[in-house]
């Protein structure tokens, strides 16, 4: 076998393969596609949170020529099922007549017309009649179950994790052994993904087949949903990802809904149709991060060791089940934090309300449970009078320790390394008191945070998905990577080109990563869960190696044994035609998970991170400025340090935004601030020069040692920032977000604390 070249392109800041297209305007997002003859769609939505759809009236005085109207009746008429298939089939694509309206902005009917303006005008002349019912608008009301939305108790899913005890009585016995118990209640708010490209999809039909192209993370999710909705087999629908302007989880499940709508419109209109959301509609109707309330008890021994952890997590799932069980699962699996503790009880519930469904957002439940435990650990350090960072270093999980599910940590444990990196980077505390440029008193504080994030799917998820990827030498002599992992800005295509290139001794620009389309690439699983680089990248590495071996064997048989791949590829392609190697996921050895008891190896491996934030608070306006934010992240191996740092920086600012700035306001079940003017996200003015320390403790079963990085930077910085606010003002803030008005509302308390100190 030919000696393959060492990992040349791996570990280098190779420019993105799609960089030039993106800086020249040549990259075409879905709304940029020129589809001759295409009409434009619009969605008629509910204005009530809960009710029954009695009728859909078309204004008799409106001119309906050149307008197509679609209702739920069109779905069954064509042999399809009115469902958006995901985990369950409880969500309809369109509310049927006589069916239940479950949330404001739920889709009821669709229109298409030759221009966008005409479609929007026609939409105003479609008038749903809905008999309103009492709505469930918070999790307490959901749990009272006076109004039933799901089953008898409105609980979509419940998980219990027990470590070191048999039942609740035994748990309470253990907790009673604590020297002191810290209790807290930690509500965290919804968060809008706010990708800058709004959601959108286009469809056309040809010979009875439906072709969809759009902004999405998971082409095969859409593909599966369309098979049920359109009543066709896998060949009947082709789903292609267009260049996608950010996702962050927001384009994980919702694109199936838009695909359903635009496919129905295009079928009825008999021509291509584009359905592009405007910003207000996107904020109001699509999924967001689950609001969550965690009740947390932390039992401490006299010396500060953790005796017992008790967390009760309740998430607002919204009107349909969608991905909520999986989000809750990740939330509870991270709820005990990366700390040594012999006795842990975590109870998680996600409940039905009449909010639009909440869904995937970077971190996927973990940020909601990280904030509570990191506030609790901070309170413990303060109570004990010890340095918060040193306290975390003392309690951190290390190799040989077990997590809340009993998973023994044996490899790639970067806990000590990331904490050390933060200790080294910390530097002196800035002066506590200052005066702003405008003469206002300023108070400074410093906060830290320590957290972990499981890479890849939970439990046996990766085995179940059994993702596949192909690396091929085409008949024309090109090397192609074929996977359904989408590049949504995170750099997947570049990373794959580097990994395949490294295995074949090729420069990354000589590897073509095929645009994901369900008729061209195998199902590698969805582009979620920090799994793209680690899991699918691992498949790409194996497939590329297999291809290299095949070609080397051919070279050997043809008198060119030992020649590099690049030199023999063209001749091999000419002789053999296309050579494609497809590999399927295989779990690392020793990974066992028991879904029934929620014990075992919850994830193949964890990423580890620690963060330090310095804030300055203007005591007149209560505005918080993040003066410094350092995050150290153990990524296993940075295949492309520039891209990895970019991922961490972006995730960090989203986390700081969630902690201090962003807020989604619901009023009677409707998003009350559905515009970028009111639903703000961080701007240049809000962003400090984020500092990132890459720590590499290799994962033996990942490509070149890499593990997940996409989500972990979202988990911790909000807690670090709010810990810093607490440090500055000397009073607790146990909520996300901490906005200036949150601080102002407690002025008396912190003013008193400040005068005392």
């Amino acid at each position, binding site marked *: 076998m030919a000696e393959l070249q060492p990992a040349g392109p791996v570990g280098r*800041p190779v*420019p*993105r393969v*799609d*960089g*030039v*297209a*993106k*800086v*020249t*305007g040549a*990259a*075409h*997002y879905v*709304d*940029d596609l*020129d589809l001759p003859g295409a009409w434009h769609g619009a969605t008629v939505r509910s204005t009530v949170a809960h009710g029954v759809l009695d009728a859909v009236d078309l204004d008799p005085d409106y001119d309906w020529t050149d307008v197509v109207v679609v209702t739920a009746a069109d779905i069954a008429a064509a042999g399809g099922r009115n469902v958006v298939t995901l985990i369950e089939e409880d969500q309809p694509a369109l509310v049927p007549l006589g069916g239940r309206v479950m949330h404001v902005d739920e889709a009821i009917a669709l229109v298409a017309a030759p221009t966008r303006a005409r479609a929007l005008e026609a939409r105003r002349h479609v008038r749903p009649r809905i008999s309103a019912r009492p709505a469930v608008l918070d999790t307490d009301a959901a749990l009272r179950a006076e109004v039933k939305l799901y089953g008898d108790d409105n609980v979509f899913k419940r998980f219990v994790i027990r470590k070191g005890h048999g039942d609740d009585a035994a748990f309470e016995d253990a907790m009673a052994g604590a020297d002191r118990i810290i209790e807290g209640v930690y509500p965290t708010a919804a968060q809008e*993904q*706010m*990708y*800058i*490209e*709004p959601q959108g999809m286009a469809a056309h039909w040809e010979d009875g087949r439906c072709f969809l192209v759009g902004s999405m993370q998971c082409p095969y999710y859409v593909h599966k949903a369309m098979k049920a909705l359109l009543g066709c087999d896998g060949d009947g629908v082709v789903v292609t990802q267009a*260049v*996608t*302007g*950010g*996702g*962050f989880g927001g384009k994980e499940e919702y694109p199936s809904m838009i695909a359903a709508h635009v496919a129905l419109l295009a079928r009825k209109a008999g021509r291509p149709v584009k359905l592009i959301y*405007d*910003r207000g509609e996107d904020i109001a109707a699509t999924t967001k991060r689950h609001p969550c309330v965690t009740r947390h008890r932390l039992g401490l021994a006299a010396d500060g060791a953790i005796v017992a952890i008790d967390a009760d997590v309740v998430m607002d799932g919204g009107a349909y089940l969608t991905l909520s069980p999986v989000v809750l699962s990740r939330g509870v699996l991270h709820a005990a934090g990366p700390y040594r503790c012999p006795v842990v009880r975590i109870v998680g519930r996600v409940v039905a309300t009449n909010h639009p469904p909440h869904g995937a957002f970077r971190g996927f439940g973990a940020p909601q449970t990280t904030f509570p435990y990191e506030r609790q650990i901070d309170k413990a350090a303060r109570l004990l009078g010890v340095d918060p960072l040193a306290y975390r270093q003392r309690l951190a999980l290390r190799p040989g320790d077990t997590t809340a599910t009993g998973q023994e940590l044996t490899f790639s444990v970067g806990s000590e390394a990331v904490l050390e990196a933060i200790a080294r980077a910390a530097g002196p505390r800035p002066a506590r008191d200052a005066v702003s440029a405008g003469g206002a008193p300023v108070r400074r504080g410093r906060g830290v945070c320590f957290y972990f994030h499981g890479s890849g799917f939970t439990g046996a998820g990766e085995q179940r998905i059994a993702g596949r990827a192909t690396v091929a030498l085409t008949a024309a002599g090109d090397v192609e990577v074929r996977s359904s992992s989408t590049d*949504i*800005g*995170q*750099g997947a295509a570049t990373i794959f080109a580097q990994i395949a290139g490294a295995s074949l001794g090729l420069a990354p620009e000589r590897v073509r990563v095929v645009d994901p389309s369900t008729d061209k690439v195998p199902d590698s699983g969805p582009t979620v869960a920090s799994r793209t680089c680690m899991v699918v990248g691992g498949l790409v590495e194996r497939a590329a190696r297999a291809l290299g071996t095949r070609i080397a064997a051919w070279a050997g048989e043809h008198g060119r044994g030992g020649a590099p791949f690049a030199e023999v590829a063209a001749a091999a392609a000419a002789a053999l035609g296309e050579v494609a190697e497809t590999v399927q996921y295989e779990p690392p050895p020793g990974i066992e998970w028991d879904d029934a008891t929620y014990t075992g190896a919850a994830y193949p491996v964890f990423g580890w991170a620690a963060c330090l934030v310095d804030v300055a608070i203007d005591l007149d306006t209560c505005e918080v400025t993040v003066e410094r934010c350092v995050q150290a992240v153990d990524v296993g191996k940075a295949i492309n340090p*520039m*891209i990895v*740092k*970019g991922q961490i*920086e*972006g*995730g*960090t*600012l*989203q986390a700081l935004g969630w902690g201090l700035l962003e807020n989604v306001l619901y009023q009677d079940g409707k998003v009350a601030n559905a*515009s*970028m*003017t009111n639903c703000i*996200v961080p*701007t*240049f*003015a809000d*962003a400090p*020069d*984020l500092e990132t320390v890459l720590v590499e403790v290799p994962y033996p079963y990942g490509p070149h040692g890499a593990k997940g990085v996409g989500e972990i930077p979202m988990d911790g910085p909000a807690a670090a920032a709010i810990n810093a606010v607490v440090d500055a003002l000397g009073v607790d803030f146990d909520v996300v977000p901490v906005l200036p008005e949150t601080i102002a509302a407690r002025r008396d308390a912190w003013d008193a604390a400040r005068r005392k100190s």
Partner: protein
Amino acid sequence: MRSSDGSLIEVHLTVNGDAVRRAVPPERTLAELLREDLLLTGCKQGCDQGDCGACTVLVDGRAQLACLTLVVAIDGATIETVEGLQQRGRLHPLQAAFVAHGAAQCGFCTPGMLLSAVALLRASPRASRDEIRAGLAGNLCRCTGYVKIIDAVEAVARGDDEEPAP
């Protein structure tokens, strides 16, 4: 120049060096004209309400939001879009710096960001990091955390790249 009955109005523009003559309704925005009539889809629409900056183009050299600009209000103007930044097939130094520094992730904010940066560096060729922050403050990016965008613009402002900013 506005017709009283809302019928089409003829305007003359120079777009990336080419003369363009179009009859447009009075409510037509520059973003619509560029994207739909001229197929210059590098002008992105992230909000259509003046909040995100993705639609930023240069109008007579000034960075302006195309989604809020009525075509009839800029008759005679010179427009520069991202499609016109390359000179003789070579990337503009800012384009090259965005690629080299990883300043574009999903890329949707990138064209607007580039044009704001072009306007900034024309006015202030040696802009500091804080001046870059202030100069680009109207452009949102949700992917990058802004660090690498500032790095890229600063590299051009400091002349780290072989070509000076134009």
